[in-house]
């Protein structure tokens, strides 16, 4: 169900945590707003990897399931 209130706030899920953000927020802005790094990360929106070149143009939608991945130690 789409959740957009009259004040332009939408609800989405960021790394499994429900967040309320302003409408028209793009992915690059979402990272900064959420105090997440912009380098060395990859963003997946609703099971699709979004290329870095599109972050500025990809606007968050209500009910989006957004996941930010980073590198971790591994063999």
């Amino acid at each position, binding site marked *: 169900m789409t959740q957009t209130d009259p004040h332009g706030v939408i609800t989405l899920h960021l790394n499994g945590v429900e967040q309320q953000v302003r409408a028209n927020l793009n992915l690059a802005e979402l990272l900064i707003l959420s105090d997440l*790094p912009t380098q*060395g*990360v990859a963003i997946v929106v609703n099971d699709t*990897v979004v290329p870095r070149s599109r972050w500025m143009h990809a606007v968050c939608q209500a009910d989006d399931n957004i996941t930010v991945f*980073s590198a*971790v*130690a591994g063999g």
Partner: protein
Amino acid sequence: MLTIADHQFSSRLLTGTGKFSNHNTMLQAIASSGSQLVTLAMKRIDLTRGHDNLLGPLQSMGVKLLPNTAGARNAKEAIFAAELAYEMLGTKWIKLEIHPDPKYLMPDPIETLIAAQHLCEQGYVVMPYVHADPVLCMRLEEVGCAAVMPLGSPIGSNQGLATETFLSIIIEQANIPVIVDAGIGAPSQACRAMEMGAAAVLVNTAIASSANPQQMAKCFADAVATGRQAYLAGLGAVNNHAHATSPLTGFLSEPTINSLAKSVNSKGG
């Protein structure tokens, strides 16, 4: 030099970044190992714990990063992970690993071949982690993999080269680098893999779980270099029978020796 795809490495020791007690220890060990190709994994950032900056220090060291697809349980997930790695790190190099079974972490050969073929077609430099299966390794070479990474024994087990017989066949048949991955628990085992003609080895747990990872990393570096030199020098043939290294024939019947023996005996009496 070790050549993988279009890249050359002077070190034949690949290292992993997992299981170290902290980042500093890991960085010191990697520096000590001389490794130029270093693996890492990917994970969803935990918003409650903050971001752990692993990349910055590794990039400062100048090592080439080799992201893996650990966690993938099938070809589809592995392909997704490779795409994720490309967006995250800007590299199309990928250590392809698909192991749905968490107990033994045995790689799934069918899903690995499917994913490898797809990723090779997409221009990735694919380095699949596989069982020491000579037929599978040939098939992976045919679909365009840049290297194959057969296991010595189960991941993190430190059991060494349990698959030695099959590794030999893979090495004999391969036209791409064979990098022995998983299970190498001691420098002597890494040395042995290199003596057999492996192009490189990947070591993680044996270094990370040592009481002194930095020193152990250096030991592995030395062992790998020695093993490589021994391979290039050429090992002697293995025989079932003894072959004397000193002349034995007629030693006791030589006149001079006999007279010396008499002399010694008379003085001793």
